[in-house]
C-alpha cells in the first residue's frame, strides 16, 4: 500500500541513495537512462540528498553549462544544448540544471525581499489601521510653517527633543479662527498618515486650536463629536419655527444688553406678542442648571417658541452653553428653540442642537417675529394685485358688452325692420301701379263704349234735324198711342215744344 504513494522520481532516488549507478537504476526500473536522469534532476530541485556533481559532469563542462544557463535561461534543454559544445550531453546539462536550481533556492528559502513600495505600504497599513493613531490630540509649537498659495498648510509640531510633520488641508483650515504663526503653541486634532513619497509620517490636522483654550476646547470638540454621533444635530429633529408666534419665551439673564435688545426689537417688529422671560445665570457654574431649568419651565407654559440667548463673552464665559445637560434639555424640548449666543463667530453645542441658530441675540429676535410693517405692506401689495385682477376682469367684460352694444343692430335697432318696411313700400307701389293700370284700361274701354252709345242714342238724331215726341215722358212711336186733344212734348236739338193734338191721319210711312 505505501508503495503506491511513492512517486516514480522517489523510486529512482531510493535506488540512487542505495548507491546504484544510473545505468543500474535504468536496468532495474526498466527505463531508459535519460528518464532516470530526469527523475534525479527533479529530485535535486526539491529534495536534500548527497549528490556529487563532479561524478556526473566534468568540471570544465560545469562552468560552460552554468554560463549557458545564465545567458539563455534554463527553461528548455534543447536551447542549452544548441549553445553548448557537442561533447556535452543532454544528461550532463539536465543534471547540472537540477543541481544549480537546488543551490539557488536553498539559501533564500526563508527570506522575503520587499520592494520599497511593499514595505512602505506595510508600514502605512500598520499606522493607518491603528485606532489610537487615527484620532489623536497633540500639543506642540509650530515651526517651518508654510501656507502654499493660501491653500494647504504644512508645518512641524515640535517640543524639546521631538518633532512631527503636520499638514492641514484647505477644507480643514478654511474656517480657522486665527492665523497660525511660527512659534505658536497649539493643539491639533488629527490622524497620522504615512507619506509614501517621502517615506515619512505626518499628522493630517483636522482641527487646530490655540493651546491657551486647551482643555475646554477639547472637551467641546469631544462632546460635539459624541452628540453628533448620537444624532442630536440631525436636521430631521429640527422643529419648524412658527411664523406668527403669540407667546415667546426667553431664557437669559435679566442683566446685560441682550435681553433689552431683544425686547426692543420684538416690540418694534411685532408689538402684539406676549413675552415670558425665565431669568437665568448665563455664566459660571450654576448657569447650566438654571439655563436647562428655563427650557423645562417654558415647555410647561405653552409658549410658541423659546429664545435661548446671551450676549458676547469669552470662550469660558460662553462655556455653560457647551454643557451636555443644556444640549439634552434643548433636544428634549417640544417647543422650537432659537439660539442667539455671543457673537457671530461663536458656535456652541447649544447652537448645534437648537432648531435654529441666530448669530447674535438681536438676530434671534429678528428671526423669532415677523416684521408687521413688512407683512402689511405685503398684504397691501397682494390686495392691490387682487383688486387689479378683478377690475381687469370687469373691464374686459365691459369692453365686450360695449362692443356688442355698439354694433349696428343695437345702435340702430330700426334697421332691423327697415328691410321689411322697404319691402312693404315696394309692394305698395307695385300694387298701386297695378290698380292704376287697371283703371286706365277701363277708362279707355269706357270711352269707346260711350262713342258707341252716343251713336245709338235717340238724342243723336236730334242733331240731324229729327225730333222726338213724348206723351207723358213716353215716346210716341205709333199713331195709335195718341188721341185728339192730348198734350205732347216735342223735343228738338235745342228745346221742347208743347202742342195740342188737333188732327191725326193714319197712313203707312215705313
Amino acid at each position, binding site marked *: 500500500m505505501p508503495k503506491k504513494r511513492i512517486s516514480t522520481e522517489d523510486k529512482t532516488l531510493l535506488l540512487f541513495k542505495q548507491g546504484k549507478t544510473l545505468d543500474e537504476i535504468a536496468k532495474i526500473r526498466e527505463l531508459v537512462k535519460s528518464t532516470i536522469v530526469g527523475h534525479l534532476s527533479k529530485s535535486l530541485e526539491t529534495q536534500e540528498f548527497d549528490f556529487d556533481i563532479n561524478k556526473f559532469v566534468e568540471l570544465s563542462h560545469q562552468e560552460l553549462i552554468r554560463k549557458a544557463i545564465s545567458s539563455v535561461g534554463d527553461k528548455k534543454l534543447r536551447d542549452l544544448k544548441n549553445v553548448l559544445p557537442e561533447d556535452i550531453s543532454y544528461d550532463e546539462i539536465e543534471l547540472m540544471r537540477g543541481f544549480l536550481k537546488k543551490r539557488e533556492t536553498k539559501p533564500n528559502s526563508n527570506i522575503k525581499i520587499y520592494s520599497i513600495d511593499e514595505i512602505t505600504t506595510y508600514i502605512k497599513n500598520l499606522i493607518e489601521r491603528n485606532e489610537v493613531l487615527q484620532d489623536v490630540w497633540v500639543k506642540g509649537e509650530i515651526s517651518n510653517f508654510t501656507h502654499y498659495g493660501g491653500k494647504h498648510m504644512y508645518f512641524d509640531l515640535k517640543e524639546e527633543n521631538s518633532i512631527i510633520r503636520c499638514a492641514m488641508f484647505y477644507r480643514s483650515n478654511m474656517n480657522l479662527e486665527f492665523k497660525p504663526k511660527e512659534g505658536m503653541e497649539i493643539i491639533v486634532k488629527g490622524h497620522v498618515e504615512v507619506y509614501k513619497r517621502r517615506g515619512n509620517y505626518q499628522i493630517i490636522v483636522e482641527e487646530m486650536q490655540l493651546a491657551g483654550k486647551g482643555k475646554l476646547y477639547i472637551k467641546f470638540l469631544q462632546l460635539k463629536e459624541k452628540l453628533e454621533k448620537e444624532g442630536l444635530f440631525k436636521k430631521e429633529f429640527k422643529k419648524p419655527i412658527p411664523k406668527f408666534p403669540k407667546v415667546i419665551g426667553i431664557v437669559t439673564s435679566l442683566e446685560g444688553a441682550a435681553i433689552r435688545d431683544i425686547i426692543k426689537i420684538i416690540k418694534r417688529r411685532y408689538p402684539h406678542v406676549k413675552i415670558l422671560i425665565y431669568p437665568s445665570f448665563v455664566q459660571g457654574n450654576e448657569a447650566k442648571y438654571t439655563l436647562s431649568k428655563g427650557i423645562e419651565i417654558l415647555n410647561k407654559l405653552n409658549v410658541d417658541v423659546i429664545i435661548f440667548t446671551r450676549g458676547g463673552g469669552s470662550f469660558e464665559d460662553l462655556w455653560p452653553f457647551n454643557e451636555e445637560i443644556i444640549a439634552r434639555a434643548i433636544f428634549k424640548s417640544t417647543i422650537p428653540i432659537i439660539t442667539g449666543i455671543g457673537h457671530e463667530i461663536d458656535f456652541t453645542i447649544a447652537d448645534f442642537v437648537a432648531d435654529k441658530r441666530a448669530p447674535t441675540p438681536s438676530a434671534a429676535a429678528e428671526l423669532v417675529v415677523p416684521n408687521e410693517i413688512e407683512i402689511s405692506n405685503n398684504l397691501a401689495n397682494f390686495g392691490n394685485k387682487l383688486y387689479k385682477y378683478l377690475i381687469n376682469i370687469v373691464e374686459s*367684460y365691459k369692453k365686450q358688452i360695449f362692443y*356688442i352694444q355698439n354694433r349696428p343692430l343695437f345702435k340702430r335697432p330700426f334697421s*332691423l325692420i327697415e328691410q321689411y318696411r322697404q319691402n312693404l313700400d315696394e309692394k305698395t307701389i307695385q300694387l298701386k301701379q297695378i290698380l292704376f293700370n287697371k283703371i286706365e284700361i277701363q277708362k279707355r274701354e269706357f270711352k269707346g263704349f260711350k262713342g258707341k252709345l252716343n251713336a245709338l242714342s235717340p238724342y243723336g238724331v236730334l242733331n240731324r234735324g229729327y225730333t222726338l215726341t213724348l206723351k207723358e215722358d213716353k215716346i210716341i212711336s205709333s199713331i195709335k198711342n195718341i188721341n185728339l186733344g192730348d198734350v205732347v212734348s216735342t223735343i228738338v236739338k235745342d228745346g221742347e215744344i208743347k202742342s195740342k193734338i188737333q188732327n191725326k191721319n193714319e197712313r203707312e210711312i215705313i
Partner: protein
Amino acid sequence: MKEKSFEEALEKIEKITEKLEEGNLPLKESIENFKEGTELLKFCNNELKEAEMSIQKIVDENEKIKLKKFK
C-alpha cells in the same frame, strides 16, 4: 328671467346678434330675438355694475380695517 350666469348670457347675446345681423329671420322672430338680446344686455350690464360695487365694497371695508389698525 330664469337663473343664468353672466357668461351664459354674454354667449347668448353673441349668438342672437349674429343671427339678427344675418337677417334671415321672419319679422316676428326678429323682434322676439331682439327683445331677448336687449334684455340680456341689460342683465349683463347690471351684473357688471353689481360686481364693481361689491369689489368697491370689499376694498372699502379693508381700508377701514387698515385704518383702524394703524391709527
